[in-house]
C-alpha cells in the first residue's frame, strides 16, 4: 500500500507494475484477526516422528514442558485432522514420497516445522550417505526451522510460538 506512495512513479523498484492492493476495511480486518487468532491458538500436530527428535517431541508433551498449555496437545494420528506437521527426525529417500503424501493429505491451511539438524540439512548424516535427504525443504515447504540434535523441548515450544506469531500476521480475506 505504502510502497507506491514512497517510490516516485518513474523509479519503480520492480520491473513490473505494482498493483493497488485493496484495503480490507474494518470488518474484514477484524474477521481476519479472529481467524488468525483461532488458527494460531489451535495448532494440532500430526503424530509424526522418524527418529531421535520424536522423543524430544514427546518430552515437549509431557508434564514438565506441557505443550497443552498452548493447546497443542490434540495430536492427531490422521493427517486429515492435523494443522501442523512437525518433521521430527531424518528423512530418507524412501520416506520422502510418504512425507510428501502426508503433507498433501492435510487440508489447508497447513504448517511445517523442521525439527532438528537432520531435517534442516541432513545434519550428522550430511556427508558420505547415500540415502538421506539433505533438508526436508527439498520436499515440502517449511515454516519454522528448529536447530539442534535433537533440539530441546523448549526449543520446540519456542518454534511453535514463533509459528503462532507467523500465523497471526497472515491474511485470509485481505490480500496483502
Amino acid at each position, binding site marked *: 500500500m505504502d510502497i507506491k506512495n514512497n517510490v516516485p512513479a518513474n523509479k519503480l523498484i520492480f520491473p513490473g507494475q505494482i498493483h493497488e492492493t485493496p484495503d480490507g476495511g474494518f470488518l474484514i480486518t477484524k474477521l481476519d484477526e479472529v481467524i488468525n487468532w483461532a488458527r494460531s491458538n*489451535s495448532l494440532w500436530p500430526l503424530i509424526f516422528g522418524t527418529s531421535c527428535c520424536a522423543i524430544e517431541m514427546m518430552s515437549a508433551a509431557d*508434564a514438565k514442558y506441557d505443550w497443552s498449555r*498452548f*493447546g497443542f496437545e490434540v495430536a492427531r494420528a*490422521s493427517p*486429515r*485432522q492435523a494443522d501442523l506437521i512437525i518433521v521430527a527426525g531424518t528423512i530418507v529417500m524412501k520416506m520422502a514420497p510418504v512425507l510428501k503424501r502426508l503433507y498433501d493429505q492435510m*487440508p489447508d491451511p497447513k504448517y511445517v516445522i523442521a525439527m532438528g539438524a537432520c531435517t534442516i540439512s541432513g545434519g550428522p548424516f550430511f556427508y558420505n550417505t547415500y540415502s538421506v535427504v539433505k533438508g526436508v525443504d527439498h520436499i515440502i515447504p517449511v515454516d519454522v526451522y528448529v536447530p539442534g540434535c535433537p533440539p530441546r523441548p523448549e526449543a520446540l515450544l519456542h518454534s511453535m510460538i514463533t509459528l503462532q506469531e507467523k500465523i497471526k500476521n497472515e491474511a485470509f480475506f485481505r490480500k496483502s
Partner: protein
Amino acid sequence: MVITGVCLLAFLVVLCFFLGYMERKVAAFMEIRLGPNRVGPKGSMQIVADTVKLLFKEGLTPDGADKFLFNLAPFIVVITSMLVVAPIAYARDFQLWDINIGVLYVSSISSMAVIGILMAGWSSSNKYSLIGAMRSGAQIVSYELSIGLSLISIVILSGSLQLSEIIESQANGWWIFKGHIPVIISFVIFIIASTAEINRAPFDLTEAEQELTGGFHTEYAGMKFAMFLLSEYINLFVVSAIAATIFLGGWMPFHIGGLDAFNHIMDYIPSSIWFFGKTFLIIFIIMWFRWTFPRLRIDQLLNLEWKYLLPISMVNILLVTAMAIMGWHF
C-alpha cells in the same frame, strides 16, 4: 417453538464448548499437568479457538469416497444425538417435550447413531475407517441390549415410560437408594454400557488411535470432523443426563421419605443445580474412565457384553420384577 429450538441448539453448542474444556482440564488434572491456560482466562477460550479454526479449515472430501454418503454421515450423527436431547428435563417444570414414551424414545433414537458411523466408515473408502465402522456396528448393537434392560428395571419400578413421571416417582428418594442392590447393579451396567455406546475409552475401539489411526473418522477434516466431536460431547451429556434422570432423580432434590423438614431444606437448592450437578458428576466419572483405563480388545469387548453384562442384567430384571411385585422397595 422455533425460538426454543434455536435456544436449545445454542445451549448445546455452549455446553459442548464447556465439555471440551472440561475434558481437557480433567485430563490435565489426571495427568499431573496444567492443561490449556494461555487462550483466554485459564484457557477457557481454547475450545472456541479450536472450533473457529475447524470452521475455516478446508473441508476436503477424498477422491475415492462416496461423496454423498461421506458428506451426509456427520449430519446424521449430529442430528440423532441432538434428537435425544428433546425429552430431557432440566429443572422443575422445564421440559421441552414430555413425551409419554420418553425412555423408549431415548433408547430407540440413540441407537440410530450407528447408521451414521457405519455410513462414515463405509463411504470413506479407507480400510481403517471400514474396520472402525464394523467394530462400531458390533459394539453399539450389542451394548444397546444392556442399556435397554437396565432402563427397563426402572420402568418396572416406577410403572411409567414418561420421564417426568419417573422423576416424580423419586420424590421420596432416588431409585438408586430406594431400589436396593438390583438398581445399583442396573446403574453400574448402564454406566458401562453407555460408555461403550458413545464410543468412549475404554471402549473407543471404533476410533482406536493406536490401532486404526482415527477409526471411522480417519478421512474427515475440518467442520465435518468437528461435527463428530460435537456429537461425541452431546452424546456424553445425553447419557449422563439420562442416567441422572432415571437413577438419581433428575432435578429432584435429595429427599428421604418421611423426613419432611430435611426434604424441605433440600428443596431450597434450585432444581436445575441438582440436575446439572448430578449430570456433571456422571460426566466426570466417564471422563475419569477415559483417562485411566487401557482400551479393551474387540473380542473382550463383545465377551464383556454377551457373557457378563447381558446375563447379569437379565437376572437383574427378574429380581427387580420380583421386588416390584412384592413391594420390597421403599
